[in-house]
């Protein structure tokens, strides 16, 4: 098992490198001179020459990439054009805010989806199953940026019980989920975000558990005299690796794909940061956030994979 884990960690290195190449290539893809996109429009010619040298733009592209990679590895992702602060500082402070709502959404969606999906699989074809399946289809079909708006209309505009946008007066530095006064700002974003993974994980759990329940060994379990709960325990344990994979992917999607929800609720996370960066064409900031988010995603997948080998004895431990 340790061999496998070590191998899996090694295998993610080329992927991480590939991700960095794509992130770097994004700047080259951007229309116009890369230097122009790195500089405020009012930069002086001296600044341009200085920057060209500093960033190695006079060198061939592969060398430029290596230089960029070297800087990125040492934590230098450039300077934001808008705030003039280091990109890395901006991204990481936003990332902690993103984690607040995505982890909240994860906990909500995963528990609910796992229970409902298992229930549906056990009652395959019965009303419970139909209701869960219908809910899941609605969940994956609803545009969550629209759902956010609808929730705001209901809870903020009509009922006035929850704040519509923002993160409250405390801001991100002192945000605490233990105080309702602050937590209430996160409620609607979390609900909105939880919907899509809820639908997807419900579907996955349902089909995975139903598939396990179709296996021959379930007949054997019944022949042993086990009741429904004990059989479900076996089914869930068997379906777990598959469900875990999808959960990992969804967690990654939440962290990396929060841009729409954060934009609606002006929640100061990475998504909101990116949306601002796009509007202001702040390329270093955009590139930096994408890089950090993609790397987070790679790391989450790695962790989930390792977890999976721990729960599935069928995976070779050699």
């Amino acid at each position, binding site marked *: 098992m340790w061999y496998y884990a070590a191998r899996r960690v090694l295998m993610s290195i*080329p*992927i*991480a490198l*590939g*991700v960095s*190449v*794509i*992130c770097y290539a*994004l*700047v080259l*893809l*951007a*229309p116009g001179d890369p230097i122009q996109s790195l500089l405020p429009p009012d930069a002086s010619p001296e600044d341009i020459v200085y920057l060209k040298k500093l960033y190695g733009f006079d060198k061939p592209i592969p060398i430029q990439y290596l230089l960029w990679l070297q800087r990125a590895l040492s934590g230098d992702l450039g300077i934001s054009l808008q705030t003039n602060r280091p990109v890395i500082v901006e991204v990481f402070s936003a990332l902690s805010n993103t984690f607040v709502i995505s982890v909240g959404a994860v906990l909500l969606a995963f528990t609910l989806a796992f229970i409902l999906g298992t229930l549906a699989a056990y009652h395959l074809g019965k009303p419970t199953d139909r209701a869960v399946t219908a809910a899941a*289809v*609605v969940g*994956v*079909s*609803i*545009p969550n*940026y*629209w*759902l956010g*708006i*609808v929730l*705001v*209309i209901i809870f903020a*505009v*009509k009922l006035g019980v929850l704040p519509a946008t923002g993160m409250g007066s405390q801001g991100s530095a002192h945000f605490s989920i233990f105080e309702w006064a602050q937590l209430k700002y996160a409620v609607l974003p979390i609900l909105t975000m939880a919907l899509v993974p809820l639908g997807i994980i419900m579907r996955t759990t349902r089909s995975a558990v139903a598939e396990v329940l179709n296996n021959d060994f379930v007949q054997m379990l019944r022949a042993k005299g086990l009741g429904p709960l004990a059989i479900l325990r076996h089914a869930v344990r068997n379906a777990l690796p598959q469900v875990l994979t999808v959960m990992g992917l969804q967690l*990654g*999607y939440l*962290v*990396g*794909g929060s*841009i*729409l929800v954060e*934009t*609606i609720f002006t929640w100061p996370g990475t998504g909101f940061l*990116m*949306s601002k*960066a*796009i*509007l202001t064409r702040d*390329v270093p900031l*955009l590139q930096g956030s*994408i890089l950090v*988010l*993609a790397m987070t*995603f*790679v790391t989450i*997948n790695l962790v989930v994979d390792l977890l999976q080998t721990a729960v599935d004895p069928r995976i070779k431990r050699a």
Partner: protein
Amino acid sequence: MTDVNALLADFAEKEASPPVRGYWSSVANRLRYDYVTLFFLAVILLIVLISVFAPLLAPFDPTKSSMAYRMKPVGFRNFVLGTDELGRDMLSRLLWGGRTSLLMGLVPVALATFIGGILGVLAGFLGGWVNTAIMRTMDIFYAFPSVLLAVAISGTLGGGTKNGMVALTLVFIPSLCRVAESATTQVRGLDFVEAARASGASTLSIVQHHILGNVLGPVFIFASSLISVSILLGSGLSFLGLGVEPPTPDWGLMLSTLRSAIYVQPLVCALPGVAIFITSLSFNLVSDGLRQAMDVKA
């Protein structure tokens, strides 16, 4: 005794013979009794027709604004569904807006199916280093959450429908490639492919006669499930200002520009979302129905 026997045997043979039916016609037959799928297929057809004939159906010019009739409620005078923040007729804009949404839903998926499918079948059938090269490259793209990759590409390329489609196509290629690859690898190991090789057939002929027919099904099912994702992502890009350029009517963009008006006319603001939801739901349910109809060991 023998004549009784022969008679009976002949009778049994005739009775036992099922109607001869190919795979696709049996799929169609199963679909015929799936009323949910049929209903939503009709909905999709309706949406397509509306989009095609929007110029004829729309009561007003969707881009003509009027300061006097800004943010009117549903049912205000001739504006059946009210007006938007620039006083344009909502109904007309909704009818026109389906065009880009459908385009954003179908074109990237079709392109990605074509490109990803070819890459996947190649990787799966040839195996070895070709497989490694293709699939590891796909893994890298797979290492981005889809929304992030779409935003990253269209964010750097700049907005516009064309760039949006390029971005979505790139987002979908890796997953389609994976599906095609695993289906091909699975089929390649089956005995009938071995038998075809044993008869001395060329690679191209085997792929054409034995692989494609068995791989197209799963790829097609998966691709159909991506249409709804593509519609949602496409509208999402427009919502972020990365898709369609104003004043072209588009559901995502409308949702975004109406956002400031939720305190004034909440119902009107929610309308474009309803349109996106119905479209995406219909595609999802039809895809599910297709999957069920095609998911038979036959």
